[in-house]
């Protein structure tokens, strides 16, 4: 009897399973035909004249481009936040398609990452979006300056004033950022990342931008102010073979000076000779640093409980040339973005000495290629 009952139950259950809408969880695989031809994009080989506002906009002849906004914010009562709002552009073919026919026709893929680091509550909120650079859904333009994807945007609302807006399921960001003078990185903006010709990107930064506005976390909207850093790079396959990833530091010191370091790593973890950086003093004087001009020592490591990836988490940076030594530490460990690309990017605090004088500040660090080789 019991056996019969068991049989009956499993039969009826079987019917339910077979009748359930399987497509609701449907998975599929797609086999694509290869591209008709490997697209030929321009490469960054020699310095070009970067001029603004023209070069705030997109460069579709190059395959990859990004606009990075990071910043450290603080409420009046001293509650700390960090944010990142990045727009990536990826060209599928060089240039722009003919604009006949459908407005949706596009060869530009845009994706964007937005994170908010709530330091006090040790909470990190990363969100990702994709769209095509067509039909006004996503895009970038130089004048008036605007980069956007859906309702996330950076927009020049009046000369020199940017409005940043992004929101996720639990967070939102509304900031006014005052544009400062762009600083060309590397050799007049040509920033070399590898040994071969063309292993380079055009790269400029806009630093120490006074920022104010609001952040919203879990329904609570807070007024904040602080400082933002912008990076804009465009390139075509800038990394050379054997590059595992990079460690990028954007450090903004209270005295008005800033330090940018771009450490490129090989598969075995050692620094590649192309690693370099830039120091800009409070007066705006730019000093380029090559890999030998600074030392970077990792003091601690943190293993992500979610991805099991191990990231460095505390550093000592010394630049003997500038008599500068400082400790850089994440304001909180978990600032790992587990999105379609996995990396760590988060707010850090800085303390140290320069010429025996104490210095301090805040900044952002980006750590890529720790889970697997970064491919471009």
């Amino acid at each position, binding site marked *: 009897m019991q056996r019969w009952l068991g049989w009956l139950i499993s039969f009826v259950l079987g019917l339910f399973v077979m009748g359930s809408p399987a*497509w609701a969880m449907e998975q599929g695989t797609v086999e*694509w035909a*290869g591209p008709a031809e490997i697209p030929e994009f321009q490469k960054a080989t020699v310095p070009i004249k970067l001029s603004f506002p023209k070069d705030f906009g997109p460069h579709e002849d190059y395959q990859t481009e990004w606009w990075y906004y990071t910043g450290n914010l603080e409420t009046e009562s001293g509650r700390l936040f960090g944010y990142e709002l990045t727009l990536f552009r990826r060209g599928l073919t060089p240039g722009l398609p003919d604009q006949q026919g459908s407005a949706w026709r596009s060869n530009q893929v845009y994706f964007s990452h937005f994170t908010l680091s709530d330091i006090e509550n040790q909470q990190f909120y990363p969100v990702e979006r994709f769209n095509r650079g067509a039909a006004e859904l996503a895009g970038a333009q130089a004048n008036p300056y605007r980069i956007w994807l*859906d309702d996330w945007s950076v927009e020049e609302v009046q000369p020199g004033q940017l409005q940043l807006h992004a929101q996720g399921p639990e967070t939102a960001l509304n900031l006014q950022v005052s544009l400062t003078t762009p600083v060309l990185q590397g050799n007049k903006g040509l920033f070399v990342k590898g040994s071969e010709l063309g292993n380079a990107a055009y790269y400029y930064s806009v630093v120490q931008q006074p920022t104010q506005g609001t952040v919203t976390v879990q329904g609570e909207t807070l007024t904040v102010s602080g400082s933002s850093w912008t990076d804009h790079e465009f390139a075509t396959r800038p990394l050379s073979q054997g590059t595992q990833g990079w460690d990028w530091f954007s450090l903004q010191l209270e005295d008005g000076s800033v330090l940018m370091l771009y450490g490129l790593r090989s598969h075995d973890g050692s620094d590649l000779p192309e690693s370099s950086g830039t120091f800009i003093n409070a007066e705006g004087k730019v000093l380029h640093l090559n890999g030998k001009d600074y030392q970077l020592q990792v003091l601690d490591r943190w293993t992500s409980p979610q991805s099991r990836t191990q990231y460095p988490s505390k550093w000592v940076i010394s630049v003997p040339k500038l008599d500068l030594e400082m400790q850089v530490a994440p304001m909180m460990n978990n600032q790992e973005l587990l999105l379609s690309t996995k990396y760590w990017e988060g707010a850090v605090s800085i303390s140290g000495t320069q010429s025996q004088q104490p210095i301090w500040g805040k900044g952002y660090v980006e750590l890529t290629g720790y889970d697997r080789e970064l491919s471009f």
Partner: protein
Amino acid sequence: MTAALEPQKEPQSSNRPLWRMAWRRFQQRSLQYILCLLGVALGVAMLVSIDLANGSAQTAFELSTDAIAGRATHQIESIAPAGIDESVYLQIRQQAGLTKTAPIVDGYVLAPDLGNQPMRLVGVDLFSEPPFRNYFAPENQTVGLAGLQTFLTEPNTVVLSTDVARRYQVDLGDTLTLDVAGRLVPVRLVGKVQPESTTAQRALSSLIFTDIATAQEILQMEGHLSHIDLIAEAEGDLDAISSLLPEDARLETAAAQKNAVRQMTAAFRLNLTALSLLALVVGMFLIYNTVTFSVVQRRPLFGVLRCLGTTPRQLFTLIMGETAILGILGSVLGLGLGIVLARSIVGLITQTINDFYFVVSVQQVAIPPILLLKGVLIGISSALLAALVPAIEAMRTSPQTILQRSSLENKVQKLLPWLFLSWVVITVIGIGLLRLQAGLVVAFAGLFAIVLGSALLTPPVTATLMKLVQPLTQSLGVLGRLAPRDIVRSLSRTSVAIAALMVAVSVIVGVSIMVGSFRVTVVQWLDQTLQADIYVTPPSTTANRVLGQLDPAVVAEMKRWPGLEDVVTYNDTDATVTAFTYGDETLETERSIKLISAEGDVSHGQRPYSWRQDSIDPWPALDRGEGVIVSEALLLKANLSDSPTSITLDSPQGPQTFPVLAVFYDYSSDQGTVILDNDPFIQIWGDEGIASMGLFTAPDIDLDTVVEDLRERYQGRTDVVVQSTRSLRDGSLEIFDRTFAITQALRLLAVIVAFIGVLSALMSLQLERTREIGILRATGMTPQQLWWMTLLETGLMGNVAGFLAMPLGYVLAWILIYVINVRSFGWTLQMQLNPSYFWQAWLVAIVAALLAGIYPAWRLSRVTVASAIREE
């Protein structure tokens, strides 16, 4: 140990000897059981095949809808014919900030390289897909972004399911041609998607995926979207969207959409199911017959068994057990047959759905276990139900009476008045059900009541008729006197066979009258409506409905063509009726209709109307934009007997109310049609396109020359079809006949079931009489005479069945035409009575009965006298 200390044993009873006995009987009379098995099997097969075929068409449509809808909770649908302005999507993303939204541009195309089937071309935006559908999830791609490159950047690239690509032997990189309303578009296959589950594989088998940009270009929908899928996570999301929606778009739940499609074909499917149930009813007669026989024949044996101590319960168990086994075997056999049958009729059903409702392509018959279970359960329970009466009868009769052979027949004779009374009662109930305005299921219940009632009337009518024919047959001598008496003497069995045959034949009569009347009505309607001489349309993706529009340049040229007296043009779109107004009273509703925009009457005033305002030609008023003409089906399906004074339609500019000028007959659609003049249509719906044209040639112009000139002018253009009235009319009738092909097939099956019923009944009847026949033979009857007597008897039975089937057939036809059809489709037909329906049916009954008599007659004539008498 002494006996006294042993535990007392319960007296043991076992059914085993009874089962052995049943098995031995089965071995002796296997043919009878096999026929009974076949009866159950065919009944179940019909039910299952219709269920499966219906289900497959429905499932195929729902699967492809679901495959497209994915996890959407809502959809934004367009009211305007052109689709939703794509800026609405941008606003939803950028102003409302809702990202779980996906735009879709889709439409139907023919794919000559893929079996020339209608396929759904679905334009997706891969970037907004992930929350909805996983087919293109980044982690599942073999080549990653590189593969996407061609799909996104190169126009006219498509993705097919791996199965379809394999079936039609197309591979990555191959070029296919798509036929978009006659426009031929070459596309290149750049991807193959392979879903994991077979359900999804089936769902994708009628879809062609493409980038949304390509879809807009191929379907000529630049600037517009077919709909927008969305996943609403909070109530606020919907409010935000509602505030953004323009008037020509509306928000619907995903479930409501699916429901609308199901509603559309509900009546059609119910009609088919009812027809298949009729076969099962005939099958039930058969089972009843067989079981009754096996009981009757074993009465002496049962008597002896009862005397030996077999309990009534054991006898009941034995009979019901035998029937259950027959039922199970028959049902299982029926499932197999049903699946085979379903494969052949699914094409017919799909065709009809394509002709009348929506485009669906069914690649294979879906076999959901629940439908099979339903078939088996209905098969077994109807077998048990049919066996219940004889089983109870055997259980209740005392051993003494069982042994008397005549007791059963005496009972039947006594029952005759009661049977007559039950006929009256059941028929009254049936009429009551038919008069109730309570939907289609109730109407079918009424129909079945009438049929069952008539079956109950069969024994008294047979008895009476046999008495009446006796003086006539007497002239044939002894045989003539014996035959009618024999029938009456075995009324419990003969009347069941007659009833089964009668039901089957009446179904033939009823359905023939209905289909015949329908056809005549449609022919008349076509002749009155199609007054134009030449028709110009784009080639239809399906036969009955014009999809796509004519090239405006062609329209302009046609209007100026020499030798034409008048040109009428039509366009149409799907719309929704939201209210019917009667004076001050307004009835809110929600009915999908076809809205036709007309410039000129294609019937030139010849069209009949079921109602007209002031009994005048409504077209001048229509032309002045004073109102609309609505189809009768719209009103009948909404259960409205009178024409409303006005109706309200949902439009891109909000609700619009139009006075009703007239009600016309429309047999091309059961969804309801509303005709509006083209000026208000263009103004409100904003679609200036022309879907079809009717050309009237001037009286002095030779029609054939004009047609030839036109064809020559548009030679090589695949998007313009020039047809004469005759070919359009013939095409329409072809669709009509195709629609009823399945009805014909089912009718034939019902006859086969009935034939098996009659055969098995007659055989049992005659075999039971072996001893009697032996005596007749011993007293001098020749084998020849025996032949005659058997055939006379079966012929008489066939006559009775045919005689009864004619009035019942007429009644069935009446019900089908005036109740079922009106409620199912909203079409009123004029009943056409053709004598041939009746005499053909009579002939079928007699021939079936005679054929069924041949085998028993042959068997009996070969019985040796001695062994027949000895059998006792």
